[in-house]
């Protein structure tokens, strides 16, 4: 789960990590009143759950009321990578002397938490990592308490700066562990001209699997930032991702669901979605899957691809029959079922006049062919 910068900054504050003075501005008046209180220049920042806000024009500095007005009108409501800006954060501008990158994440290969630091903070950090890997420093946490001041030696020349950054990193690590984060990032960690350090941006991602033990964090979820169908799917216990396409997919298992989309594409078709009904045998899930998919205007055919293990094919068949009864389905459906209780499922479906396939290859070829004929 992702949260907004303003929410992450709030968490930073709770852990005594220095953040700039800021406020959420719902309208221009609030933005002006903040700027008059703290003084210009200020920075307006779009609050959307995606990276690259700055490059998309979602972050603007204002030196006076007119500039603030222009920036506010431009950013509020703008579209950044498909997200409409509905919240604006206004921040007192910092006098930047130096930009540092500080981050903590998990590393799959080592199965460990890793801290990352670079003296080359800012928007181009990924390019820096590619072109100058020697400018990026990583510390694997391991079993012991890490020595951050030693780790930060190549990033800061002065001992006093190193000590400050080490304290911030150790607070970040505490925040990371106590809240089941998967990523925390301060980019940039700014050294101001007066020598003080401030976290000029705040990013935090959380582990969805651990939200059950952090109700306070779960409550930070911004549902407006998510696709309504994807939210509905999650509430139904389905995993669903929308693509631009024509063939709706209902599959059990994430790997098989991805492979199904790939195979459709490889054969010249356009998959409409990723949908994993999961391992359960609840016919209700199949009905919900249909409800979510048939709403999509581009839909031309549906492929059901089930390899029964824990999932029982007859339960899926019952769900499918129920969906036919409940919903008006007037597009072609291709059904592939194999595995647990396959024979019973095929019997049920053939009673209803629904043909089934045993082979994934034949089913996908059929559904892609159907699409071509429409």
């Amino acid at each position, binding site marked *: 789960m992702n949260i907004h910068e303003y929410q992450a900054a709030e968490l930073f504050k709770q852990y005594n990590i220095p953040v700039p003075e800021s406020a959420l501005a719902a309208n221009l008046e609030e933005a002006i009143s903040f700027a008059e209180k703290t003084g210009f220049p200020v920075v307006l920042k779009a609050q959307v759950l*995606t990276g690259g806000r700055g490059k998309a024009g979602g972050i603007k500095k204002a030196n006076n009321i007119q500039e603030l007005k222009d920036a506010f009108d431009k950013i509020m409501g703008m579209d950044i990578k498909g997200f409409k800006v509905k919240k604006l954060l206004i921040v007192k501008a910092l006098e930047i002397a130096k930009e540092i990158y500080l981050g903590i994440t998990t590393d799959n290969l080592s199965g460990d938490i890793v801290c*990352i630091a670079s003296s080359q903070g800012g928007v181009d950090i990924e390019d820096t990592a590619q072109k100058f890997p020697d400018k990026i420093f990583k510390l694997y946490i391991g079993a012991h308490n890490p020595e951050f001041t030693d780790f930060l030696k190549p990033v800061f020349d002065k001992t006093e700066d190193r000590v400050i950054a080490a304290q911030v990193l150790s607070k970040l690590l505490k925040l990371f562990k106590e809240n089941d984060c998967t990523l925390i990032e301060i980019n940039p960690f700014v050294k101001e001209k007066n020598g003080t350090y401030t976290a000029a941006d705040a990013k935090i991602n959380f582990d969805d699997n651990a939200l059950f033990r952090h109700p306070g964090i779960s409550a930070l979820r911004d549902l407006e930032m998510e696709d309504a169908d994807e939210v509905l799917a999650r509430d139904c216990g389905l995993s669903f991702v929308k693509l631009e396409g024509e063939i709706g997919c209902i599959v*059990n298992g994430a*790997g098989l669901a991805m492979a199904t989309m790939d195979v459709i594409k490889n054969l010249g078709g356009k998959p409409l979605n990723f949908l994993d009904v999961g391992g359960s045998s609840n016919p209700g899930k199949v009905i919900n899957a249909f409800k979510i998919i048939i709403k999509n205007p581009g839909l031309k055919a549906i492929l059901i691809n089930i390899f029964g293990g824990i999932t029982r094919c007859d339960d899926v068949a019952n769900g499918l029959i129920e969906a036919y009864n409940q919903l008006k389905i007037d597009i072609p459906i291709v059904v592939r079922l194999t595995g647990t209780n396959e024979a019973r499922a095929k019997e049920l479906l053939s009673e209803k006049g629904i043909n089934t396939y045993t082979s994934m*290859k034949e089913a996908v070829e059929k559904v892609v062919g159907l699409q071509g004929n429409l």
Partner: protein
Amino acid sequence: MSILINENTKVLVQGITGRDGLFHTGQMLEYGTKVVGGVTPGKGGQSACGLPVFNKMKEAVEATGADASVIFVPAFYAKDAVMEASYSGVKIIVCITEGIPLLDMIEAIKIIKEKGITLIGPNCPGMISPGKCKIGIMPGRIHAPGNIGVISRSGTLTYEVVYNLTINGLGQSTCVGIGGDPVIGTRFIDLLNLFMNDKDTKGIVIVGEIGGQDEQAAGEYIKSSVRKPVVAFIAGKTAPMDKRMGHAGAIISGKNNTAGAKTEALKAAGVSVVDFPWEIPGVMKELINLKMR
């Protein structure tokens, strides 16, 4: 032969009295796996599927001589179950449970490594040496004994691949579902090494997917150390990339996490990467025949 588990492997089921644990204990027994008992705290002294239930793993191992355990406990308790198993004397732990918090696994895996134990999973279908031993939830009947080693990050996609191998006359030495989570106990390279040293494994199938950079690590290892045919399928070519925030993931893995990058890396290592799962048996047969010529 097979790797890790065989007809002599004695298995304990952690969470044997739960709905899934009980059902799959029955399925494993039916397949011929030597399940020797189970553990559910507070239910020691009862029996399940005709097997003794113990309160603690250590007790259970002492009483039964088990050398492997399989975990079906809910995500909330899974870390404790892995930890308990790692101190009990078993050498192999298979964790089926999905949805385990990442930091729990990071903690548990430190102990696993310290103890030199093999952990398969979590969030995996388990593993099977066909005709000998099944530890997990995969449908047994789609497998057949033979000479192909299968390593997969997926569940049902593994079944699809195995089913295609079997109906085309390619049985399996051992099939391992290593799990779909970011942090897992056993990786492609660990198993490639075991299959490389198993004289009855004549070819290896890898089923990968988007995320992480394990396939790249596998590619490097195959290039340097694997002298058996390897065929791969990578799922997720059409999957949209995460609505990503932050740079740390990209700093760690570069652009390695896409299906395209993984496919390229494996091809560069001499692996045959197929576009369709059903092409695997044909390509594998060709490669094995070439090698035998």
